[in-house]
Structure formats: C-alpha cells, structure tokens
C-alpha cells in the first residue's frame, strides 16, 4: 500500500515520498552534514510533528526519511529483533511512504534503523546506522538546564561526569551504568550512544559504518563518521568492561552475543537467548544448536520446520 505521490496520479492529494516535504528534508540534510563534520556534537534541528508518537522513534524516522532512496534496503530493529512491535510499525511506515525495500539480514541492509542495539554481525563500509535517541544529552541527568549543558559542551567541561562515574566506583566498586554508557567522540565531545547496552559500545569504536543519531522530541541530530575514535569513559584503575553471561544462547549456542532473559515458568526457570534475532537465526541455519532449542519449540518461541 503506497501513500506517497507518483507521477501518474498527480491529481489526488498524497504525501511526499518518505512522508517529509522537501524543505524539511533539506533542513535535516544540512543538520546531518554539520553533525558529520563535528562528530558527537548535537546539532539542533527543526524536528517535525510526525504521525508516530514522540519518544517512539520520531528522530530516527526523520533521519531515515531524509536519507532513504530507491537504491536502499532498510532493516529496522528494536531490542535487536526485527519482529518487535515498534520495529514492525516503523518498517511498515517506510514500506507505505517510501516503497522501501526491507530486509532482516544485517549484511543486506544499506540503512539499519535501531532502537537499543547494534547488530552482532560486524557492520560494513557503506552501511548507515540510524539510532533512535530518547535523550541526546549525556549530561542531562546531572544538569537539567539546556543553557548550562550547552556551555559545558562548549568548554569541554566534563568534570561533573567524571565525578559522577567516580562516585559510582567509590560506592559499588564499579561504574553502574549498564546502558546509554557515555562515550568520548574524537577526543572532544561526550556523547550519549543512545540506550544501547554498554556491551555494544565497543562496536562504535572505529566502525566502518556511518552512524547517525536522531532525537525527535528533543530536536537534536548527531553523528559519528566511519573510522572515528569512540571511547567509553573510564579510569585507568577501573577500565571499561562489558556484560558477560555464564551460559551461551539456549537456541544457537552463541557465547559472544548479547542475551535476553526469558522466564519460562513460575518456578524460577530461565532461558537466555540472543537479543539479535537475525544473528541467532543465521547461526541456527548454519547448524549451531543451543541446549534448549527443543524446549523452545514447546514454548512456541520457535517453530520446528522440516
């Protein structure tokens, strides 16, 4: 079902290709170019009202709408999975408004719009990651006033953030931030990587892909070009470290992927499975089998297809 205008039916009212009007796309494109030129700096932009709710990915949607074209293949994930409800909803939006060719395969995608994860498969040169960002300001929880945080970025005054992280260590013996873990980009701007688990932070470092971030409600766009230094904030005596699990994925046996916990009964039964659904499926198709694959079939998490 297409709702945008094509040359054949000029008489009927319709939405522009990819929903946004051309003036809006130009405004977003200009912001994107400045964002790329100043890695990690949040560019204010005239975020538009979108037909999807604020806080539900309108920043990422506007970025994708401003860059997508007929040659692109789009993948949309939420929590790492292609079939989570909001990912399905956003994918449908681009299928309707931009005739988008979509995929679940990470390596086939030219644009990957994501909420909360970076795929497990390494990203490639030429791919563009579009992150949905709820709160672009990494300092906001420390300083609620925009006028103040803007000055802190202007003067690279990040002492407050260091103090907060160090207080954490003093109290708990480690930094207790597990997601949206702040990073230093190109040695200049402290940046919110969006609420990805800190497990994914190292994937941003020197990534060959272009990474774009859109915060619709907060009206900010920022970017990390390919091959850019993205360092998770830490201390010499307390180096940054990522999450790990004691067991591998119960479905595909992967020992190096981010796992979701699935509660399988009311007696404390748990199962850990890959959050990246495409990664997990690819591995199972290659013949990898986790310890609880058959149980998962019973639980209707997977189907046994001969």
């Amino acid at each position: 079902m297409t709702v945008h205008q094509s040359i054949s039916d000029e008489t009927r009212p319709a939405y522009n290709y990819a929903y946004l009007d051309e003036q809006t796309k130009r405004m977003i494109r200009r912001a994107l170019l400045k964002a790329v030129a100043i890695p990690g700096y949040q560019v204010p932009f005239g975020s538009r009202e979108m037909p999807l709710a604020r806080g539900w990915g309108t920043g990422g949607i506007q970025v994708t709408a401003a860059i997508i074209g007929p040659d692109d293949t789009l993948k949309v994930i939420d929590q790492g999975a292609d079939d989570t409800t909001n990912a399905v909803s956003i994918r449908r939006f681009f299928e309707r408004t931009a005739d988008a060719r979509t995929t679940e395969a990470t390596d086939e995608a030219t644009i990957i719009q994501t909420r909360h994860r970076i795929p497990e498969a390494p990203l490639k040169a030429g791919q563009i990651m579009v992150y949905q960002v709820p709160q672009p300001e990494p300092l906001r929880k420390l300083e609620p006033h925009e006028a103040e945080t803007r000055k802190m970025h202007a003067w690279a005054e990040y002492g407050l953030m260091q103090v907060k992280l160090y207080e954490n260590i003093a109290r708990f013996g480690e930094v207790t931030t597990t997601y949206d873990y702040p990073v230093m980009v190109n040695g200049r701007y402290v940046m919110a990587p969006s609420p990805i688990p800190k497990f994914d932070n190292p994937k941003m470092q020197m990534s060959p892909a272009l990474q774009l971030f859109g915060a619709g409600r907060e009206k900010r766009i920022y970017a990390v070009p390919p091959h850019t230094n993205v360092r998770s904030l830490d201390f010499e005596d307390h180096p940054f470290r990522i999450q790990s699990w004691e067991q591998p994925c119960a479905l595909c046996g992967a020992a190096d992927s981010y796992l979701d916990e699935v509660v399988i009964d009311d007696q404390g039964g748990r199962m850990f499975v890959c959050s990246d659904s495409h990664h997990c499926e690819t591995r199972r198709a290659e013949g990898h089998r986790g310890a609880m694959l058959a149980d998962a079939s019973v639980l209707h998490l997977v189907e046994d297809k001969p």
Partner: protein
Amino acid sequence: MQDDNQIHAGFSDPVFQSQSAFRALLAALSEPGLACDIGVSVETPVGLEPATAVALLTLADYETPIWLPAALRNGPAGAWLRFHCGAPLVDDPARAAFAVIDGAAPEPKLAAFHAGDDQFPDRSTTVLVQCAGLAGGETVTLEGPGIAGQRAVAPAGLRPDFWAEIEGNVALYPLGIDLLLVHGAQVLGLPRSTQIVEAR
C-alpha cells in the same frame, strides 16, 4: 547558442535527484578526501561547476544565505540560484551558510567565513571550493574521523597558501568552516575535523 538572460532548468525530478546527490555529499563529508561522484547532472549556469550547482540545489533554500564572488553573483549563476533555491545572496561572507569560491583566487580568505560559535559550532559556513582538478596537484596527507589511517589527496589549482589556511581552520576545532572541493561532477569533503599530517 543560449540566451544569456534565460535561466536554465533545475532538477527534473527534485525528490529523487536531491536524495541521490545528498547521499554523495554525505559520503564526501563522512569520508574526507574521497572524491565522490555527485551522480546527477543539471544544465549548469556559467561559472558553477556541475557538482556545485547540484549541491546547492540539494541543500540551499530561503533559509540559507549564499555568498558568491561578485562576477557570479551578478551573472547567470546568481539569478539561477535565486530562482531555483530562493536563497538570499549576501555580500558579507561571515553571514553565509554556503559559499562558492574559486580555489585559485587569492580572496576571500577562508577565515572570512563564519566559523560558528562555541555553543553552536554547527552555524558555520560550508564553503564549496571550485578547483582545477581533484588530482594532479600538491599531495597532502590527511587523517581524522572518516579516514581509516591516512589518506592522500592532491587537488589541483589551489592558491599557494590554501593548505596553511586549512591548518588555521583545523586549529579552531570544534569551530571552523567545512569545505567541499569541487571539480566537474565530483566533490571531495574536507570538514573541520580533518587534520593535515604533511603537505609536500
């Protein structure tokens, strides 16, 4: 022979041509030093390189003042930009969102354009530098975001102190102008974040 007073056409398919050209510009600034084909052609007014014309059609509108050398501003190029982009043409380079300069001309200096301010470094000018070629000139090695390791470039026909001016611009980081070197249908990005390792 074309009538000098006639304004040439702009995009024939604005939605898709501007999308495709934008992706080339995005690639150029994301991977500095890499010559990118702008991929779209329009009938270009005298004095604008094809890629300059396409870049401005893609990015400029009534919200973005443009600075042009006087000869272009008062000629067909100025009229073309006013008509197609609705962009105001300004005298003061420091007020420009976009500027087009001749890479060989001694003026204006890069420092004459707006470098942004410390709270809003994004408000700086993007300068399109029209040059004699994107290869064959003095070799300069670049590094920084968007470059895996180092990348050598050799744009031709730039004024003698051009790279010294670029070094001055880089020193302002995170302020500074962003440049697109243009020749024919190609653009090469040189954002403020790109550092010069050595010039010879």
